[in-house]
């Protein structure tokens, strides 16, 4: 298998207060694939994505065993080297379409500046490209929209503008952090269809962060499940729905047992308890407070098991411990 486009291993992020938000995350996003990152609120999905883009707030410290994009080592890249990749070869869109655009500048000004910066294009070329991209994301009358300010657009339109802006420079990777969560249900479906279509047509690799298992079932090639700062299970989508291994994954899926019948908007499974806030120096399985199978050994370091091709999980239990499934 060729090298993944985005290859993350042992990613750690600790905040100044001592919160270990990400603890050794490993994710591999292949070219042209949609990789979903799921997990409950606060498990470290956004922080992982921001760490990849090197967009963490000051006071956060990042380290990794491996952080490579298109064969390039992001860890050894300077700030300017990283800035040259961002918005150019790797782009990101966010959960908050209402506040993610600068209120003081027009849509056109914000869209063209990214193309001019990375491609060195003239104003005219950049403007043409911006109009083309607005049309591409399904915005009618792009010429008129280019002259408008963000406050003149609805939330759905703003998220379309964000997507168009992210794709201005034809990136290889798009990181989308819950791009539909803040939108109306009908608009959510439109934006999701749009993203899936663009991914297919442009051969984009997408790292899609979501709460929504319905979305995962519809668009993901691969899924990584995060819990308390770790990826506890990663597999091809069909495989994960058919043979979930980690007790947390099983808990999530228990509410939605039949893979083909998941509807969009379905929340993650309800497992009693909440995600613990993990401090630096925490040892053992982060899920053990809520796990029905917890045993004393779970407080020590947990092994990563393989459960078939390209499917692994982080748990004491041996693969296909299905005899226990009913107890979950």
């Amino acid at each position, binding site marked *: 298998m060729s090298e993944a486009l985005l290859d993350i291993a042992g990613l750690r992020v600790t905040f100044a207060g001592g919160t270990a938000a990400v603890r050794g995350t490993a994710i591999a996003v292949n070219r042209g694939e949609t990789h979903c990152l799921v997990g409950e609120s606060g498990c470290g999905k956004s922080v992982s994505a921001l760490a990849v883009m090197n967009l963490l707030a000051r006071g956060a410290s990042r380290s990794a065993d491996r952080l490579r994009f298109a064969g390039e080592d992001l860890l050894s890249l300077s700030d300017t080297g990283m800035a040259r990749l961002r918005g150019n070869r790797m782009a990101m869109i966010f959960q*908050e379409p209402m506040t993610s655009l600068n209120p003081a*500048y027009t849509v056109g000004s914000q869209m063209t500046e990214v193309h001019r910066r990375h491609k060195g294009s003239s104003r005219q070329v950049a403007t043409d490209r911006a109009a083309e991209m607005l049309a591409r994301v399904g915005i009618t009358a792009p010429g008129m929209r280019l002259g408008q300010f963000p406050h003149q657009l609805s939330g759905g339109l703003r998220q379309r503008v964000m997507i168009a802006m992210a794709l201005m420079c034809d990136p290889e990777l798009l990181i989308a952090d819950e791009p539909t969560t803040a939108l109306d249900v009908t608009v959510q479906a439109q934006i999701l269809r749009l993203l899936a279509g663009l991914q297919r047509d442009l051969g984009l690799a997408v790292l899609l962060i979501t709460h929504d298992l319905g979305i995962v079932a519809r668009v993901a090639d691969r899924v990584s499940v995060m819990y308390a700062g770790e990826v506890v299970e990663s597999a091809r989508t069909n495989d994960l729905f058919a043979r979930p291994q980690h007790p947390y994954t099983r808990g999530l899926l228990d509410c939605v047992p039949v893979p083909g019948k998941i509807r969009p908007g379905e929340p993650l499974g309800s497992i009693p308890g909440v995600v613990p806030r993990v401090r630096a120096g925490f040892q053992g399985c982060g899920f053990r407070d809520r796990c029905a199978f917890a045993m004393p050994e779970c407080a020590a370091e947990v092994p990563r098991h393989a459960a078939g091709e390209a499917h692994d999980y982080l748990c004491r239990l041996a693969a296909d411990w299905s005899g226990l499934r009913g107890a979950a």
Partner: protein
Amino acid sequence: MLRFLIRRLIVALLVAATVLTLAFALTRLSGDLAISIAGPNATQQDVELVRKAYGLDRPLIVQFGSWVGRAAVGDFGESYFFKQRVASLIGERMPITVTLGLVGLAIALAISLPLGVLAAAQEGRLADRIVQGITLIGQAMPSFWLGLILMILFGIRLGWLPVSGTGSWQHFVMPGIVLAFTAVPALTRLTRSGMIQALSSDYIRTARAKGLSRLSILLKHALRNAAIPVVAIAAVQLGFMLGGSIVIESVFALHGVGFLAWESIGKNDFPVVQAVVLVLAVIYVGLTLAADLVNAVLDPRLRGQ
């Protein structure tokens, strides 16, 4: 937007009316004007003549009405002391005060904006602490004292700048710096807090995600939003500066409107005092209105309404 401006205009007119009344009332409260105009050697008869001649024997409300009526068309009467039309007196002095105010504001912005941006970009680090220290010291320093220090250093010791008078642009440098210092602490702090708020906003995260340069993020994306409240306060500060020029104009013997007011108060020259107070107040109100307009230009969300 239009409704917003009309509302502001009404408020401005109310302020102007209040100032008008106060200016009138203050001069009438400070003793019998007829006596002070007639002079120390006047007889009771002279005083009565003066009272009649200046219309001071009429009821107060009538005096007020006629004064307002004439003030509205720019006729402030004649100065008792200078024996000259008040309007032309103020007209002669105003350019000096306005020049001083603009020089002061320009210097204040030239210092505050870079300091505020620097402090915000380096929040919590050494540069930020130093800037915050400067604003604290600046606030504690009385302006006449700073004026004297500058005079001694640059005027007398080094001989680089003239100490008093209005002959050339160099005359405005020291008073401009002193005047600027009254506004620097507030403007710097406002720039810093505005920048810190802007830098932590989602659109700055977007700008960084677009790979823009640090300079473009700071000066294009953050400063443009942080500048909106700074502009409003800068206009208000210019109003304060024009008022505060009374002290500085007397320290540096600049013969502007502030100096005129100072002279006239001492001489009980009430048409001049009233007119200066009124003119400064109208300018102040005009400046706050202008600030609203500039705000509207800078903030597209206001413009659209």
